[in-house]
């Protein structure tokens, strides 16, 4: 994929600390926990990037900050040249509803709405009357694209995990977002369904030419992105040798398995 000159997302000097609520027995001093340190990351428009790291390394935290769901303790986040970490919740919500799509590990569909209604939701919340008025048609189209045109009226708990995630993918794409954030989209699924969801995600992403930020601890999945970064110990390592050897080819080779092990070791060594 060719890289355009505009940066979709720029994070400079981002760090995140949280204060742990003091245990009732201990003194009243709050303990500060540092989760992210000096993160520098630039993501080009149309690029797909995987953020890899061990469990608890802060991947979801970083994703939240990049997507404007959370604020960094220090540093800046720019979203198509617009600084978002200084915006208030309402303004960030506005950006989310116009420019961002989400896919989560736990699918997170509204349980009391049908598949169709879940997909319609972002369109209906949109400020664009055109999109709002055609929410239903669009939702049907997208559900068709993810292969669920026969399950429109089913509630999330009537769908399998893989189906739920496909609904979530349709929901993420319906607003034609510029940026797509995915947090472990296939981690809750078995291999087969996971693969199906991954294929779908990359296929649709390629067609729509959306910028994709993917969080995963699955190297196989990471390799399908154009670029990979490793989050370890709160620091971001660009182009870590271990995971970049595989290149961006989609074909697997014999070293895959050993690579996986190497990464696992690399990650665990970091601790």
């Amino acid at each position: 994929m060719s890289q355009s000159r505009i940066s979709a997302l720029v994070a400079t000097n981002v760090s995140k600390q949280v204060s742990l609520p003091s245990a009732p027995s201990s003194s009243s001093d709050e303990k500060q926990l540092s989760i992210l340190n000096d993160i520098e990351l630039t993501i080009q428009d149309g690029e797909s990037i995987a953020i890899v790291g061990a469990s608890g390394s802060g991947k979801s935290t970083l994703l939240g900050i990049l997507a404007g769901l959370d604020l960094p303790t220090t540093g800046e986040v720019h979203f198509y040249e617009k600084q978002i970490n200084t915006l208030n919740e309402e303004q960030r919500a506005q950006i989310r509803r116009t420019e961002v799509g989400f896919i989560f590990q736990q699918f997170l569909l509204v349980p009391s709405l049908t598949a169709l209604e879940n997909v319609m939701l972002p369109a209906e919340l949109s400020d664009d009357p055109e999109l709002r008025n055609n929410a239903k048609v669009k939702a049907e189209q997208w559900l068709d694209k993810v292969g669920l045109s026969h399950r429109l009226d089913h509630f999330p708990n009537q769908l399998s995990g893989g189906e739920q995630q496909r609904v979530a993918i349709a929901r993420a794409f319906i607003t034609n977002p510029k940026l797509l954030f995915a947090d472990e989209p296939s981690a809750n699924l078995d291999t087969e369904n996971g693969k199906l969801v991954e294929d779908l995600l990359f296929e649709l992403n390629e067609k729509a030419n959306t910028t994709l930020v993917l969080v995963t601890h699955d190297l196989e999945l990471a390799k399908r992105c154009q670029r990979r970064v490793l989050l370890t110990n709160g620091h971001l390592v660009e182009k870590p040798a271990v995971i970049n050897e595989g290149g961006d080819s989609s074909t697997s080779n014999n070293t895959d398995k050993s690579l996986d092990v190497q990464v696992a070791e690399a990650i665990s060594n970091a601790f």
Partner: protein
Amino acid sequence: MHSNSQLAKQINTTDSSGAFFTWLKIAWRLFVRELGRGELTIIALSIILAVSSVMALSSVTDRVEQAIMSKSAAFIAADRDLQSSHPIDNIVIEKANELGLQTDKHIYFSSMAFAGDEMNIAVVKAVTETYPLRGELFISQDLVTNQSVTKKGPKQGEAWLSKRLFYALSLDDAMLSSDTPPVVEVGELALNVTGIIESEPDAPFQVFDSGTRLIMNIGDVPATNVIQPGSRIFYRDLFAGEAGQLDELVQWLEPQLKPNQEIRDVKDGETAMSNALQRAESFLMLAGVLGLLLAATAVAVATRLYSQRHFDSIAIFKTLGASVQQVRVVYLFQLVLITIFSVLVGIIIGSLIQGVAVEAMAGQLPKDLPPVGFKPLLIAIATGAVCALMFSIPSLLKLFSVPPLRVLRRNLGDNFATSIMAKIIMAITTILLVLIYSQNLRLTAIVMGAGAVLVAVILVVSNIMIRLSRKVGSSVGGSAIKIALASLKRRASENTSQLIGFTLAIMLILILYSLENSIIKEWQQQLPEGTPNHFVINIAQHELEQVKQEFEQKDIVLEQFYPIIRGRLTTINDEVLLQNDRDKDKSGAKLTDGEEKANNAQTKAENRASDEEEGSESEGRKGIGRELNLTFTELFPENNTLLEGEWMTEGVLNQVSVEKGVAERMEIKLGDKLGFLIGAREVEVNVTSIRDVNWNSFQPNFFMIFSNDVVADFPATYISAFYLSKEDKLWVNQLVKQFPTLSIIDVEAMINEIQQVIEQVSVSISFVLLVVVMAATLVLLAQVQSSLDERRKETVIYRTLGAKGSMIQNAITFEFLSLGAIAGIIAALVAEVSLYLLQSLMFDMDWVPHPELWLIGPISGAVFVALVGTLSTRSLLKMTPNELIRQLS
């Protein structure tokens, strides 16, 4: 859906209104879906319950109130009356007619009545043909069959006589129903006797001086020529109509009242029944308020559960870019929809219950009562709306503030502490609801007081509980108990709120249960089976033995005989009392002027009147102001309670026992020396006891009782009471014929009426109790439901760790048992406090401890809570861990 979006297209003329419409559409969709999926069941149920119970309760209360009013109104034969010792200006009646009120006018006076050679003093009541405006007048036209019919006032030229007067004048009962009725002369006017008075609504217990009653038309009074300046006459104007008209009249009348005039409300006529019924009325109102509070609690708990379950949805909405405004519109509109839906269902159910209740009570009510009307409906709708909106605010505020980041950090926003602001809003709403519903400041204050006690006790207890469970924690054996304790500990803060809900539910039931018990018990004590339904009075001393024999022959048991002598209290400890001779300016015919009328709480009103007099002129101690009916006996009267001193010690001379009220008012203490003027003789006695008299009992009651030695040699007449069955009614006529001086007073109609009303009110009370129990159950259910999600997670963990289902079941049961028992203990404590406040401040009853509550509370609490809790968590244990996990996601 299709037509919806087409509609959306049409309406979408401007962008913002189109957007808004879309949000409403989302809300509608969520509402329909969640309703179908049962997500809204508890919240809807609690609003439905609030609406239907308020509607049913307020229409029942309304009806009972109307019944009470009309029954009490019967006692003054009107809704209001104006009493006067001077003629009342005609403009009063004119004004009342102008306002649309029904009116009646009475004149009372005493006059000699003549029939042939016979003559007797007659206590005349002259009325219009509208008499009685309220209540029923029974007139018998045939003394042989004694069939009586209800009548309005007599036409001009007619007179109705009491039995005693009829026989005293030696009139012929066979002529009564003939074409040539007997004639009686009052002053210069001859009147045809066309009926015998069986009962007058507004002369309930003229036990001491009404034996010779004559009712005639007021239009005939001038022609009698008996009313001369200076004669002792008493006037009454009577009014009946709607509350608004009556109030207007009273407002107009009050400023122009003359010194000897007084307006009476039905409630002023404190009678045995109105006392009992006012208590029932208070009870119903209280129960209504408590039911309302419970329903409000249920709403609060249910919306809390609702928002807990919607944290994720809100986080998703926000992540998808919904603005706070969008979220608010969507969820508030959804709440509005839930409210409208539930209010509608509540109204339907409420009107069904109302229909049944009103139908059931129809027989007890006068036929001309207005229909139930819209008031209960409006109150119910308002209550439902206020409950739904105000009591869900804390939960909704919390819900709206769920951060979108929850989609990544799953437990964000979980800790559910209600903000102080929300608590204040709920407290104020509660107080306002209670105030508006009861329109009773005192009750509101009591509810607030009890509420404060409840909160304080629960805070202390839950604090102790948390500390204890921390200490006990791992040291207690039995793994089910261990799990339960751990669970209690983990949910400490949630348990506090659960505890409030449980306690509130149990407490309110305990309060109502105890009150119902004591009210109904008191009624039963007051009117046991075979309560005397007749009084026999004016038995001359020389006839006493004969009369007793007659009764014995007929196998009728007479109650205690009391001799009666009239006398006046003149000195207390040699201090001479001022005598304000009320006997002189108020005619002896005045209804309320008798004193110790058998069973008459009107005396209380009298007492008050005297109190007022005392306040206005304050030189020296005032006398009672009239002659008293005195008695002497050494037998302690039934229905009295000895408060101080000893009852008639043998061998001690000159003793007197004084009624508590008089003693307080006259500042008479044990050992005081009282001087009486009886006839021409002065008598001195010492106070040896003070008694409490139950004025509500159907028994002769006395302010002063002497020992036998004091006045035994005075000529006395005797009074007693007896129970007479229907079949023996005719015998009474013979008796009265045989002993013309004695009078029989039939109070059976009244007793029947009271018993009917009591029965009806008892039924309403049970009904109300049922509604409250239902509300309480709902609160418990909602409360348990709200911990169900959490429990589900725990059960998964325990199950996947291999815990046996039975053990988890035991743990849950144990947890609920202990929660219920603790709630029961607190409930008993707070109920006791509340009962003390209620009985002493609202119900005018004596408070006695209720030890049974301390048993019933914890046991029923534990059983009830454990049952509801265990039953509603059972489904969790039937599922496999896999199914549970699936439900969780």
